[in-house]
């Protein structure tokens, strides 16, 4: 039923709770791989984060690794301090290029490369945050025919990032976290 092949999510300040709300109830056999850039301080302890997430998720939370090909069943996170990119063959690459929008990892870098790799089979979701990272990525996703969603700013701890994306005029749907969950569920063939 669905022709969506990947979901990319960008989150910043306040994003962790929203990610939990959207991702935790997704079933183990959710058919679309999910890739997340969440701005973190580089000092954040990574190991703990995945242990924590995996007690809450039915899907498998892990750090995206160089060369790894996107697979359903996984929720990939960009490693702290590295930009996460998707190559045309739909595998991950990483770099330590300059910060984009004061961020590394930057949501824009993931979204823009994902748009080029997945074209109209991509869903891009922008969540709460106190900066403007992700807006250029959303524009690119739209340019390549993908579908874009912004968290309803009224539900965002920090609305700046979603408002900036909405102001671009390239957001298809503005939804609360629960609605985002319902929305992506309808595209996923989670039966087998």
């Amino acid at each position: 039923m669905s022709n969506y092949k990947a979901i990319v999510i960008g989150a910043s300040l306040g994003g962790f709770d929203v990610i939990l709300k959207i991702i935790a109830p997704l079933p183990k056999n959710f058919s679309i791989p999910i890739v997340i850039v969440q701005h973190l301080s580089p000092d954040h302890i990574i190991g703990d984060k995945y242990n924590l997430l995996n007690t809450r998720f039915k899907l498998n939370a892990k750090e995206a690794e160089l060369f790894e090909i996107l697979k359903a069943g996984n929720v990939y996170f960009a490693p702290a301090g590295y930009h996460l990119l998707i190559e045309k063959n739909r595998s991950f690459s990483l770099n330590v290029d300059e910060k984009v929008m004061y961020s590394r990892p930057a949501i824009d870098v993931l979204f823009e490369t994902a748009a080029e790799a997945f074209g109209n089979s991509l869903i891009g979701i922008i969540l709460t945050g106190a900066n403007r990272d992700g807006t250029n990525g959303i524009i690119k996703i739209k340019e390549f025919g993908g579908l874009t969603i912004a968290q309803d700013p009224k539900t965002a701890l920090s609305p700046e990032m979603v408002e900036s994306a909405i102001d671009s005029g390239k957001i298809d749907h503005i939804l609360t976290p629960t609605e985002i969950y319902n929305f992506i569920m309808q595209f996923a063939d989670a039966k087998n």
Partner: protein
Amino acid sequence: MDNYGNEIEDIEVNLVIDAIFQSYGYDFKNYFRASFTRRLRNFKVLNNFNHISDIIPFILYDSGNFNKLLNAISVTVTEMFRDPFIYKYIREKVIPYLNTYPTINIWVAGCATGEEAYSIAILLKEENILDKVNIYATDINTNSLDIAKEGVYSSEEMKLSTRNYQRSGANRSFSEYYHTNYGNSILNKELREKIIFNQHNLVSDASFNEMHFIICRNVLIYFNKKLQNRVIGLFNDSLIHNGFLCLGTKEDIRYSDYAEKFIVKGREERIFQKKQQDVEL
């Protein structure tokens, strides 16, 4: 499978890579495409070009312009004592081993503006073995190497360096290693004179000495599997038996043909030791 993306731009990127290779001999074919394309786009915007292919005449007829491109496409982002925990490991586990040799050769490959090489030099000084060490630091980017040789960094950067240094298991004061003047900090002469900076291209150049320890961090992530394999092969050839190799925290020897030649010493630190003898399989 559907073919998305800007196909024309893809052709242009291929043409630029080819033009660089044919006229200047640098081979970027096996760099990861998404990162490389982003850098070409930045260079295009910087020069007010309409298309990536406009870069071709720009560099073909003027080698000065090619140098600009070369410096723009190589990423210079670096720090002193980046990932402090690896320096702690080097201090505690690698240096005592190196110290058993009468002279020690260390190669910092992809040293960018020098911070990493100076960090290693400081470590060696604190462990009192700097005198018997040769440090070779190389990069493809000559602009970066010029900055590295100067050993002058902004006070802003020194703040971050100090913070990293303190987390690396050090117990001295970082300010012992530089003098500040007009908002810039110059590293001590002893450190600056210790390191031999030279241009070296990991894609095409050969090994230039027997090494006891090679540090190459956050360079391989820009290379595809094939090129990573070549470079790890080069490191394997350059290292003495029992020599150490340190890669970036997201890099690994696992995907190369040389995985069997090394023992994993520090998993998180990505520190590997070359085995005593080649293993017959």
